[in-house]
């Protein structure tokens, strides 16, 4: 029975993605009967490359995605290296985990208001500088995309930090730190030379997922990114929304181009990894101690704190917006407050939360069951999935949503499951499975096999070993994976809207629709609402193990994954 779980999981993940990709590949080469496209050809590609600024858009997506990922990874690694085991580390853990519940768009809106020339920080400065008008500087929507990188980094740091946290206990970091300290290495140098090579392979998949996301992100790019030209993904969305239906062909070929951009980005990253590994080996063995790293240590804390602080401040500001009357430049606080909008939305809130849960709960439950099944099967058959399987798991994360949404819609319509809860859950499952797999696979695999072996020797059946030994030991990891899955499904917009055909009004579909109205008050209200469910999920992931294992010291956060 367990043998079939990996196959079912793969079917759930690649079935829809392949169907969707075919549905995009065909129009990319001119075949879409509903629009009169029956002959294959390269016209859409010619039209695509004739678009003004197309290579600039491609370069923007590629370079900014790479920079954002590199900066996030660097800050997380530096911070872990500099502060692991200290109080600051634990404090950051507590601050960064809830931030995971913040949707990307909400975080971007908050940040946008903070740093804009008419934003909060500028208003603070205006008090002293005596400005009555905001300066005309392009901070948001700057042509280089630095604001977009900042927005991406602020959200990626908590995610990568969480992944690293899951990997750290498996790498025996405490003893390693003691040894490197004894040998005279500075904290950061010791960590980078001894622990990083062991941690990195475990967080490699999440890092590549982050890279794929940064290179193809849409909502953060719309809120913070350049507009002349916009990054490729944003332009694709524009072409797909264009009333001129003939542009759909070009949009499909652009979606394939976006896929290629992601592949190239991953290729560059992997090549860089090889290079750094080579260089790293030389540096690791050269004996340099780098003892005086106080400055870098402080810097890493400042950077990590800055990103978390900016995000939290952005959320606070959005909260103020949600109860604000008119709030003009250069007022630091609104001149009047009003709960009217909250009162008006009160009724709609309940039903949208219920609908969100109606989709989220089956999705997360099915996902965790499948993933646990796959991992358990792997452990029992002692058969690690090959690299092909790893890339299959990756597929939904690497292929940008835009690239296969149209095909997916057609697929579900063809099999008659459209507009049903089943189809929405299945389409969400496509995106939730990889994240749940990513967050659970390393803690699961890194679990000491001797526990299971001992239990088997004592006469327990494999099922008993799973339920009574392995699962309890992995409680925290499983709950965290479920919380990650919950956050992913709550944040889905395109699948719910397109495949649910508007029958399911979740918090996110409402939020995005209202965000198009531009009113920061509504953005504030719905952004905060979007956070409620994932926040609850992560809170459970923290509290339930703490309560269950309050009498077991060996199970507390420091010692277990």
């Amino acid at each position: 029975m367990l043998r079939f779980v990996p196959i079912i999981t793969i079917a759930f993940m690649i079935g829809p993605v392949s169907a969707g990709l075919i549905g995009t590949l065909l129009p990319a080469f001119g075949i879409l009967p509903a629009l009169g496209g029956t002959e294959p050809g390269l016209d859409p590609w010619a039209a695509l490359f004739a678009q003004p600024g197309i290579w600039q858009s491609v370069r923007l997506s590629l370079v900014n995605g790479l920079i954002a990922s590199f900066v996030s990874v660097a800050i997380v690694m530096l911070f872990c290296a500099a502060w692991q085991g200290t109080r600051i580390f634990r404090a950051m853990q507590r601050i960064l985990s809830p931030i995971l519940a913040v949707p990307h768009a909400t975080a971007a809106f908050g940040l946008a208001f903070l740093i804009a020339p008419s934003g909060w920080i500028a208003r603070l400065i205006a008090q002293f500088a005596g400005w009555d008008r905001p300066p005309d500087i392009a901070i948001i929507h700057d042509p280089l995309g630095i604001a977009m990188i900042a927005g991406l980094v602020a959200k990626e740091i908590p995610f990568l930090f969480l992944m690293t946290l899951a990997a750290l206990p498996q790498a025996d970091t405490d003893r390693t730190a003691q040894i490197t300290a004894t040998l005279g290495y500075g904290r950061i140098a010791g960590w980078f030379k001894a622990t990083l090579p062991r941690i990195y392979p475990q967080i490699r998949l999440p890092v590549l997922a982050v890279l794929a996301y940064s290179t193809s992100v849409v909502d953060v790019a719309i809120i913070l990114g350049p507009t002349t030209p916009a990054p490729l993904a944003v332009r694709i969305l524009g072409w797909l929304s264009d009333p001129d239906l003939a542009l759909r062909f070009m949009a499909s070929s652009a979606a394939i181009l976006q896929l290629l951009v992601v592949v190239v980005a991953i290729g560059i990253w992997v090549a860089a990894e090889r290079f750094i590994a080579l260089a790293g080996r030389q540096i690791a063995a050269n004996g340099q101690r780098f003892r005086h790293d106080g400055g870098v240590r402080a810097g890493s804390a400042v950077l990590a704190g800055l990103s978390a602080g900016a995000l939290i401040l952005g959320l606070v500001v959005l909260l103020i917006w949600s109860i604000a009357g008119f709030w003009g430049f250069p007022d630091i606080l609104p001149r009047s407050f009003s709960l009217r909008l909250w009162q008006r939305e009160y009724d709609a809130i309940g039903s949208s939360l219920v609908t969100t849960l109606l989709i989220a709960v089956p999705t997360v439950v099915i996902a965790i069951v499948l993933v646990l099944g796959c991992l358990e099967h792997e452990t029992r058959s002692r058969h690690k999935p090959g690299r092909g399987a790893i890339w299959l798991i990756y597929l939904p994360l690497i292929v940008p949503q835009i690239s296969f949404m149209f095909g997916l819609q057609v697929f579900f319509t063809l099999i008659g499951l459209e507009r049903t809860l089943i189809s929405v859950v299945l389409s969400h499952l496509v995106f939730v499975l990889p994240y749940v797999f990513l967050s659970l696979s390393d803690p699961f695999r890194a679990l000491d096999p001797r526990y299971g072996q001992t239990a088997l020797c004592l006469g327990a059946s494999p099922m008993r070993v799973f339920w009574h030994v392995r699962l309890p030991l992995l409680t925290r990891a499983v709950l965290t994976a479920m919380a990650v899955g919950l956050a992913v499904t709550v944040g889905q917009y395109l699948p719910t809207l397109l495949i649910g055909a508007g029958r399911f009004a979740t918090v996110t579909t409402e939020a995005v629709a209202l965000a198009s109205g531009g009113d920061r008050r509504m953005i504030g209200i719905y952004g905060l609402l979007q956070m409620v469910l994932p926040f609850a999920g992560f809170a459970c992931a923290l509290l339930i193990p703490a309560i269950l294992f309050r009498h077991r010291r060996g199970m507390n956060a420091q010692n277990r994954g």
Partner: protein
Amino acid sequence: MRSRMRAFVSALALATGIATASVSLPAYADPAPDVGNWQSVLDQARGQTVYWHAWGGEPRINDYIAWAGDQVFERYGVKVVQVKLTDTADAVTKVLSEKTAGVNDGGAVDMIWINGENFAAMKRNELLFGPWVEETPNFEYVDVEGKPTVVNDFTVPTDGLEAPWGMAQVSFYYDTAKLDSVPKSAQALLEWLAKNPGRFTYPQPPNYMGSTFLKQILTELVQNPKVLQQPADEVDAKAVLEPLWGYLEDLQPLLWRNGQAYPQNGAAMRTLLGDNEIDIAFSFSSGEVSSAIEAFELPDTVRSYVFDNGTLGNTNFVAIPYNASAKAGAVVLADFLMSPEAQLRKQDPQYWGADTVLAMNKLPADMQEAFANLDLGIASLAPAERGTVLPEPHPSWMELVETEWQKHYGVVQ
């Protein structure tokens, strides 16, 4: 290797199995209602649920739609569910993908709030049900003579495929507390901007508000405005568009952010005005500005105005896709939306503030009075203040202008 191959083939087989073995939901076949026989339409509509795909970015509009839904349910037993869109094109995509999949009946979209290029695209690709509009009871109140755009959507004849819902006219707005005088023509705008650089911008084409600004300028600068009513390929388009490009050359360096960044839609532009980043903005409805003031987005000193030589105006509509599941219900709903009662509430800035498509002289006396007594809102323009309404150019001009704009201004080096 072999076991991996086996696994892959099994996965593929399973996926196919799931697909083919799935139980197909019965398509909700809905025969086309006979709009000439109104009672039969009402009978067919009773008990249906209409999924109305409409832009959901403005809570006041969503509230109005909810009210209309309640009314239609009480009176005719038709349930209305608003599917909130960020972009009308999402609904067009939905119908298109259904047509691709061969779903010619029982579709997901029953009604779309639509106009302009989206309508032209759906009409061209035969994605709409109809004609049905002119046989509905309330169509007799529509001001076909005084408002030609109710049957000509951006010069494309509606052919009874879409029911007029609201009128829109471009109006500009500004904060009277910050500005004393405002430019009232394209040339005056350029001169004003030279003295106040960076205090004006327009949404980035091909967003329809940005395109509208370009059309407005073009209509003012072109030698013979009538040439814009013809398709662009029938005249010397290059010569016609020259004055526009000359104007934009001068305008570009004076824009907000030096034209390196643009707001992405009308709402973003309104936010810029509220943030004091720009001094003048524009919208399709002065009632919308009053609504924005009520919603605290703008200070209460903001007022609207029009250009001396007139501004562009158009109509927005509701249309029914060819494969809708609840065609009768949608027809009943559309008819209600054209009723004097619904139009009155729509024009009331307390609820929405958009202009009516009805002719006052066709209404019964009590409705005429009700319309006359409406308090239009502090930033709304009274009918007398509207000035001339200029007709929209043929859609082909817009496509041409948008493509050229992208080349010259869409990419900043």
